[in-house]
């Protein structure tokens, strides 16, 4: 579904991605982890061209995402993207946030879009908050709205950048539960997270990045075993210590 071929990226003189080669199979969930600054956000942001790459090739369903005939906005509307900080639009109500892509990209009328958005809010368990402003709901609820908004155009791929890192601990669960359900429904998912329990349970593959290099790419069983790369074992023990 998504293929990275020798992907390299620099910010000025700083190389942040080094020859990344990897594949995300259709319908699978890939969890990305690694130390802070290792390039996880940068790598997933290359998928919808929020970050341009300087070398290599990325294909989505077999199409080069930098091909001349690709409209970047069409590409992006086919990929759901969820940010750590939710990035809801604070001047719009919850339901208006979710409706917006239907109105402005699908060019639907409000009458068409509203029931679809309400259904999606129902799906994430927030139909009763439809008319609240983002400032008036909790972090966990905000992230669920952001996920609903990212799914409203029915993308085949959902990309999430630390979706639970900005949440109070008691709200992490509700978001992970939703992601588990989405993963089970068969969406192709790439998720940066430090929630190792989630990774073990939901991921089909786990990628480990260090200094812009994809040093390890394995199934959870191998990732959490003693056979894993030394970097991974160090990382895991550090994550456990921080709990």
């Amino acid at each position, binding site marked *: 579904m998504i293929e990275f071929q020798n992907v390299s990226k620099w910010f000025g003189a700083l190389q942040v991605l080094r020859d990344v080669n990897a594949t995300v199979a259709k319908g699978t969930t890939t969890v990305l982890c690694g130390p802070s600054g290792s390039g996880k956000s940068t790598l997933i942001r290359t998928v*919808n061209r*929020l970050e341009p790459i300087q070398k290599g090739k990325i294909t989505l369903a077999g199409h080069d995402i930098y091909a001349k005939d690709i409209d970047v*906005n*069409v*590409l*992006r*509307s*086919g*990929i759901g*993207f969820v*940010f750590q*900080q939710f*990035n*809801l*639009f*604070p*001047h719009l109500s919850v339901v208006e946030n979710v409706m*917006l*892509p239907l109105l*402005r*990209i699908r060019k639907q009328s409000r009458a068409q879009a509203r029931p679809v958005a309400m259904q999606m809010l129902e799906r994430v368990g927030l139909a009763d908050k439809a008319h609240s402003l983002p*400032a008036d709901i909790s972090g966990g609820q905000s992230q669920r709205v952001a996920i609903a*908004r*990212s799914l409203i*155009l029915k993308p085949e791929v959902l990309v999430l950048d630390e979706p639970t890192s900005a949440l109070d601990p008691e709200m992490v669960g509700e978001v992970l539960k939703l992601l588990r359900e989405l993963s089970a429904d068969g969406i192709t998912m790439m998720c940066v997270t430090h929630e190792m329990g989630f990774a073990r349970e939901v991921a089909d593959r786990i990628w480990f990045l260090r200094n812009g290099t994809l040093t390890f790419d394995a199934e959870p069983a191998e990732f959490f075993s003693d056979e894993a790369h030394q970097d991974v074992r160090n990382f895991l023990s550090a994550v456990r210590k921080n709990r």
Partner: protein
Amino acid sequence: MLEIIQNYWLLLLIGEYPHGKLGGLAMTLIISFVSLIVTFPCAVLIALARTGKPGIIQSIANGFVHSVRAIPLLMLIFWAYFAVPMIIGFPIDAAFTLIVAIVIYQTAYLGEIIAAGITGLPKGQREAAAALGLGYVPTMFRIILPQAIFNVIPGIVNQLTTIIKESSLGSIIAVSELSYVMLQVNSNEVTKPLQIFGILAAVYFVLCFALSQATNWLERRISSRRTGQVVVEAVA
């Protein structure tokens, strides 16, 4: 003082209307509001150009803002009043001239306020819009500008007080706004400049003080409504 108010209050409020031209405070308010309303869309365009992609349009906008900020408004009024009729070959109404000069001048300042509102938004807002697949126009007009303008409403109201004060320059080219009317009263009464200009100052003060109080009130409301949002301090 009371005597002056008794004799001239109607002139002060509406000029010689309905027997002659509308003037006085009414004229001041009309010029100010019309100027602000015409300035607003121009300022939005300037702000978009200033905060957008570098290129020829941005360079022109930068040049415009820097030029306008480097000349006094009075100079713009002289140009509009004396030079433009020579160039186009027929005279233009003085009030219209004044409005045009204020609009050009204020476009630069209000544009900067709105630009500050745009750059003050968290960059996640643009990224979220981009990630959804929104193009430039819906991103700016549906996401960025509504928030940016809302956040700088205090700055915009504050600019209205500046415009009200600036409109007094109309007296120099015989626009019958408040200051001009009071100058006329002064030449009638000759011996009472202290009272006359005291009244004039008081009227401007009440008007602008009320507006600046309104600005403070708006500032408090906006920062409480948009928790977590940057409220941009207006650079007037």
